[in-house]
């Protein structure tokens, strides 16, 4: 790609590369934006943050030098996004628990959960969620609550529950599918 533009005057080369990068990033955006936002929302637990970081990821792709040489722009885009998500979670952790070891109560290990909001769930759905959790085996609901509600990672839950991290993930998966289906019923009058 580079060799073919070698003989052009410098400013045209710049313009060509810029156009190519712009075009390829635009294609990435068109094809993968929905998945990228979903991916970030899953990592961050916040659609607003996900949309913001997705924008940021494209911007980084745009200013990247030699982005034409990247084997898989899609993989690269998601790697940038994953890194941004890690930074955001770290920042959130700092903001929620100020850098002091003297805090009276330690905050949870992993702040996957964003700042809670009231009325995130209507009372009808709230009852549905509780019922759904009661229908599950105790281990399954426990692992689920520890992960989704308390924000602990699978590894930490595995230690507490004396299970493998794989089993913890299995329980969380089952509970998530079950609760989603049960709360869905309630959504329909």
């Amino acid at each position: 790609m580079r060799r073919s533009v070698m003989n052009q005057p410098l400013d045209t080369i710049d313009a060509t590369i810029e156009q190519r990068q712009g075009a390829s990033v635009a294609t990435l955006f068109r094809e993968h934006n929905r998945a990228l936002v979903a991916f970030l929302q899953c990592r961050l637990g916040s659609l607003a943050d996900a949309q913001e970081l997705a924008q940021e990821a494209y911007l980084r792709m745009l200013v990247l030098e030699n982005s034409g040489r990247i084997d898989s722009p899609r993989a690269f885009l998601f790697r940038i996004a994953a890194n941004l998500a890690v930074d955001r979670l770290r920042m959130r952790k700092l903001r929620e628990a100020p850098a002091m070891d003297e805090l009276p109560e330690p905050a949870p290990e992993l702040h996957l959960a964003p700042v809670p909001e009231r009325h995130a769930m209507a009372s009808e759905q709230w009852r549905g969620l509780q019922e759904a959790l009661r229908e599950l085996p105790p281990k399954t609901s426990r692992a689920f609550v520890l992960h989704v509600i308390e924000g602990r990672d699978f590894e930490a839950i595995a230690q507490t529950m004396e299970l493998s991290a794989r089993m913890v993930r299995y329980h969380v998966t089952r509970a998530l599918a079950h609760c989603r289906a049960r709360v869905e019923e309630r959504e329909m009058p």
Partner: protein
Amino acid sequence: MANTQQSFDEHMLLTAADWWTRLRDTRGAEASVEQWLDWTAQNERHLAAFEYVNVFGERLGRLDAAARRQLLHEFAPAAAPRRRWLPLAAAAAVVALVAGTGFLLWERVAGNAVVQATYASVTGQNRDIVLADGSKVTLGGASRLRVRFDAGQRQATLEAGEAYFQVVHDSQRPFEVVAGGVTVRDIGTAFDVRRSYGEVAVAVTEGQVRVAATSSAMQTLDAGAGQRVAWDPAARTLRLGTTTQEQAMGWRSHRLEFVGEPLAVVVDSVNRYSSRPVRLDGADVAGLSFTGTVRTDEIDSWLRALPQVFPLQVEMGEHAVTLSAGPMPAQRR
């Protein structure tokens, strides 16, 4: 995005939930992301099902503290008492305290006479503190001090900014201040420690101190009243000079005094009192040597006057002030 009218069968929900937990598992997730993307590309309903589960996950994560506590209490009782949340209001209060007036939290370690505390001050405000041993400290603006006292030693770490110490003598427990690359050990005295732009300056107003470079025990300087030790991190050397009461403690009465110091160091100190951060554009500007007084309540007029003495221009932005290279002052007229 996610179509709320859609409903998915059990198998689809389980598959979507499986991807959700896989992506949340950041260990070894690199490969999963690729596979997940392939899965979403296979069928349009796949991504829709994932979004459907995803939205639900976000809503659960946003439940308020009372709801969370209730769920934990019922479904994960053993974990609840060990790891309760910091109630959100309390967390906010701690943050507000830190931001507003600095904070103080003592911790006594298992019956041992160990006391630890961290003090911080906000930009533009000094703060007076009395330590557990009766020693007095004045913190400059935007400064942070961590203190740890035990049976054999009193140690204070200046993590940022500037502090003036009036130390109560105790031959059994020496008082040590760690700042950047140096350690200051007192013998019952009063002295000022300032960190700016990597440099550390120790100005003694009473008694005597011993200043040691942390990196090398061989580099040690004793300084008495009226003397000043500066640590140059680039040259890794300690330099002995002189100081006056005014230079060492002027900042406690709103005057920052400088004698032949790089503009970068000056601006670093000024920024601890400035509502708008001052930025230096270019190494030439940063290296200009400044002698004079900056009133912390009149920073703007000082900035506006700078182009009269230095070849630089001042750009007063809404959120920041930028100093960049400009014409020589003489050429301006």
